């Protein structure tokens, strides 16, 4: 479309009798952008907040994932009341309560969401009133709302505004009551479904063989109903199960149905079912079907968040501050591409997922420190770190992929980072280059991407168990390298942050647990505002209890990408093995000294030939006796004592690890 639009405007005036609404549309030179589909937000990340009065619309969503539908699901889940199944035994007690709480919270959030939606409709209606009364200025979305309504009511424009309002109100109440009826019917159906469902598990047509593949219901709705049915049986297994069916039958059927519905590989789905018990796996997979809200990070090197928000709102974008971060903004809608505004090009902000703020918040770099980022491209976290450090100190960034360096370097320059060095090494070779010389190290490891399936759905079908295992090996090597680059003696730091965008335990907790065994590090609280604690046990693995300090971020709980963050503090630059070797050596030396002292003193059969070793009381006595006998230097005995104690602590530590192994 070209031209000034005057002709088209005239045409619209002729058609609709009002020149008001189409004007903006025509001036824009085309139909206004469709409102973005908003993710129904759930949980505590605060991303659910929608600016009122700007008329965000969620009405036109497909039936599969409307908030109402989801509410019904959740209500169903809530009805099951967290029935204690056998598989629940896999969970730690606190974990169990935590999950239960989540389950309990879920429906309330969803219904809250429903009412929120109504609110937004209300508010948009409110906005329309002055507009239709002839108020000239209105934001783009308002105009659009009224546009739709206008097209409905344009037939009789001699109506009074109040009449129109009344009619709309009536229509809305009618719609609401219809919705409520539908919901009731839905619930009733759910209630009835339990009985017929048993039949369907036996196989729609055939028997046990019919359960797989061919026996699955054809439509997505039916598949979802089947999943819900299985879940309801699993919720109270002993009461609801079909005679002669085992739990594993139900689990297999659930897995197969999930795979058919959402398109996951069976192995991946099985892993997800381990991680997300029961109903949670369904919410996880559903959440992965929808995109996360778009967020951006203010570059605090160049601009303040309030100024940036003002600039973007001036460009017509609808943005809001993210409550738990000082630099993040969530974008509800934008008429201009936010990747090409002058502000973006001038480096005022970076488009990045809200979850990727977490590792840097956990790292908490200080000014004038030396910081290493092992796998840095494309530079979202790098530039965030530099901004937190206010461009002081040194930020060494590295990436193993040469083709990704371009974007990394471009972003570093665009955002005005001046303290960085960009290198191109395999992260595993970095310790040989630097030794333990960094105050803080950030490792955002390459991973299978099971947390960001909504960005890259190919993950569902491409990640086999072997891929995940291979990733885990690389991650372990990289994490050890990252730890080796960190200086335990750093006055301000000695911190390593490990993060992935995966939800797999193999790539997360297991990797950190491995590092705990191999290096002298401990897991400390990440200091993040929210997040689910990491697992300390998963199937046959038992991890160190401190892994509960790690944090997981989940799409269906926080409305963030699936993410994992662990903050480690390095205790010593020696590995536990080296510490143990040193302790052994010290013990031997002590033994020798003891023998010599015995010979010289030539007396007291007190601990004669029978001293084993490493008993503190023994040592003290020994030290005393040796002092008494020939005045062996205090320092020596003191030193050996200290070493004995480190040995003991080392043993404690390693015991803990072995427990976890």
């Amino acid at each position, binding site marked *: 479309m070209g031209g000034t639009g005057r002709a088209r405007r005239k045409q619209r005036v002729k058609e609709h009798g009002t020149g008001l609404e189409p004007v903006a549309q025509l001036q824009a030179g085309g139909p206004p952008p469709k409102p973005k589909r908003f993710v129904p937000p759930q949980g505590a990340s605060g991303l659910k907040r929608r600016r009122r009065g700007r008329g965000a619309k969620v009405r036109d969503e497909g039936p599969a994932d409307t908030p109402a539908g989801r509410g019904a699901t959740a209500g169903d889940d809530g009805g099951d009341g967290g029935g204690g199944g056998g598989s629940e035994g896999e969970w730690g007690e606190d974990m169990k309560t935590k999950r239960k709480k989540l389950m309990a919270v879920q429906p309330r959030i969803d219904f809250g969401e429903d009412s929120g939606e109504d609110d937004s409709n209300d508010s948009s209606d409110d906005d329309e009133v002055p507009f239709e009364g002839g108020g000239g200025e209105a934001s783009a979305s308002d105009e659009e709302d009224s546009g739709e309504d206008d097209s409905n009511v344009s037939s009789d424009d001699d109506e009074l505004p109040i009449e129109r309002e009344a009619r709309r109100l009536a229509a809305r109440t009618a719609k609401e009551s219809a919705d409520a009826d539908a919901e009731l019917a839905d619930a009733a159906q759910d209630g009835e479904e339990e009985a017929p469902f048993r039949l369907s598990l036996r196989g729609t047509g055939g028997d046990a063989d019919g359960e797989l593949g061919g026996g699955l219901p054809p439509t997505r709705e039916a598949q979802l109903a089947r999943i819900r049915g299985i879940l309801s049986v699993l919720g109270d297994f002993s009461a609801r199960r079909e005679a002669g069916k085992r739990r594993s039958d139900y689990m297999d059927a659930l897995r197969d149905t999930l795979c058919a519905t959402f398109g996951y590989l069976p192995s991946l789905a099985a892993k997800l079912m381990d991680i997300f018990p029961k109903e949670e796996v369904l919410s996880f997979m559903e959440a992965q079907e929808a995109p996360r809200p778009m967020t951006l990070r203010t570059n605090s090197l160049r601009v303040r968040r309030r100024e940036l928000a003002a600039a973007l709102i001036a460009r017509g974008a609808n943005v809001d501050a993210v409550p738990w971060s000082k630099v993040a903004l969530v974008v509800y809608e934008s008429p201009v591409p936010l990747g090409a505004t002058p502000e973006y090009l*001038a480096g005022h902000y970076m488009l990045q997922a809200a979850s990727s703020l977490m590792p840097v918040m956990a790292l908490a770099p200080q000014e004038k420190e030396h910081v290493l980022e092992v796998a840095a491209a494309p530079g979202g976290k790098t530039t965030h770190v530099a901004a937190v450090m206010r461009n002081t100190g040194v930020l060494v960034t590295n990436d193993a992929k040469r083709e990704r360096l371009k974007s990394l370097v471009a972003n570093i*320059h*665009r955002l005005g980072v*001046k303290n960085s060095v960009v*290198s191109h*090494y395999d992260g595993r070779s970095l310790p040989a280059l630097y030794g333990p010389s960094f105050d803080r190290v950030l490792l955002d490891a390459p991973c299978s991407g099971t947390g960001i399936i909504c960005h890259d759905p190919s993950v569902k079908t491409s990640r086999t168990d072997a891929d995940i295992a291979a990733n885990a090996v690389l991650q372990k090597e990289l994490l050890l390298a990252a730890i080796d680059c960190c200086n335990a003696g750093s006055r301000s730091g000695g911190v390593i942050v490990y993060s992935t965008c995966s939800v797999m335990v193999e790539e997360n907790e297991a990797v950190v647990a491995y590092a705990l065994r191999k290096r002298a590090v401990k897991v400390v609280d990440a200091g993040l505002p929210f997040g689910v604690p990491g697992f300390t046990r998963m199937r046959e693995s038992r991890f160190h209890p401190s892994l509960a300090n790690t944090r997981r971020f989940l799409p269906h709980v926080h409305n963030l990408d699936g993410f994992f963050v662990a903050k480690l503090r390095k205790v010593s630059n020696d590995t536990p093995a080296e510490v143990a070797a040193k302790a052994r050596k010290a013990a031997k030396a002590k033994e020798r000294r003891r023998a010599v002292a015995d010979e010289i003193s030539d007396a007291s059969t007190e601990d004669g030939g029978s001293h084993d070793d490493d008993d503190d009381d023994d040592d003290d006595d020994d030290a005393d006796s040796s002092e008494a006998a020939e005045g062996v230097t205090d320092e020596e005995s003191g030193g050996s004592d200290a070493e004995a104690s480190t040995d003991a602590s080392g043993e404690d530590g390693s015991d803990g690890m072995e427990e976890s192994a």
Partner: protein
Amino acid sequence: MSLRPSSEDETRAVFDKLAKFLGVHLKLLLSRTDIPHVLRLHRERVYYVSELVLRKASNIARERLASLGTCVGKFTHARKFHLAITALDVLAPYAVGKVWLKPSAEMSFLYGNHVLKAGVGKVTEGMAGGDGVVVHTMGGLPLGFGLTARPGAEWRKAAPTDIVVLNQADVGGYLRDEASSPASAL
């Protein structure tokens, strides 16, 4: 040594170019009181970097070093020195000549076009033809830099469609030619 201080010819080429924009402020750039900064040549690129960062970079092999500090520009095959858009951070705070664009002219400039007389909202007084200028928005946001196409005195007489600033680099380049950007040495 992966990074060497530039030779005399190269130094002159770089300083000549920078002096076009910075004038007498060039001295400030190299005698900073907070942290000493230096210019270093790496793979035909010139980087403006603090000595602290430079020390850390000395661990890295030449063929593994993609960037350090801020990239100022690049030597061409003909040994001429070209400023890159990444130099904007170095130039903008010290620049002598400045042009402020009207909002209507911003996007055109960001697409790589020269600045027309009609798009200029404000300008530094007393520039000669061929002087370096940093181009800002009316809000003071630096968008790029270029050369004046004619002496400042003649700008008043120019027609609205006359080019007054030749675009040398603009931040739109971050999107347009990220792949060919000289900032990354690899």
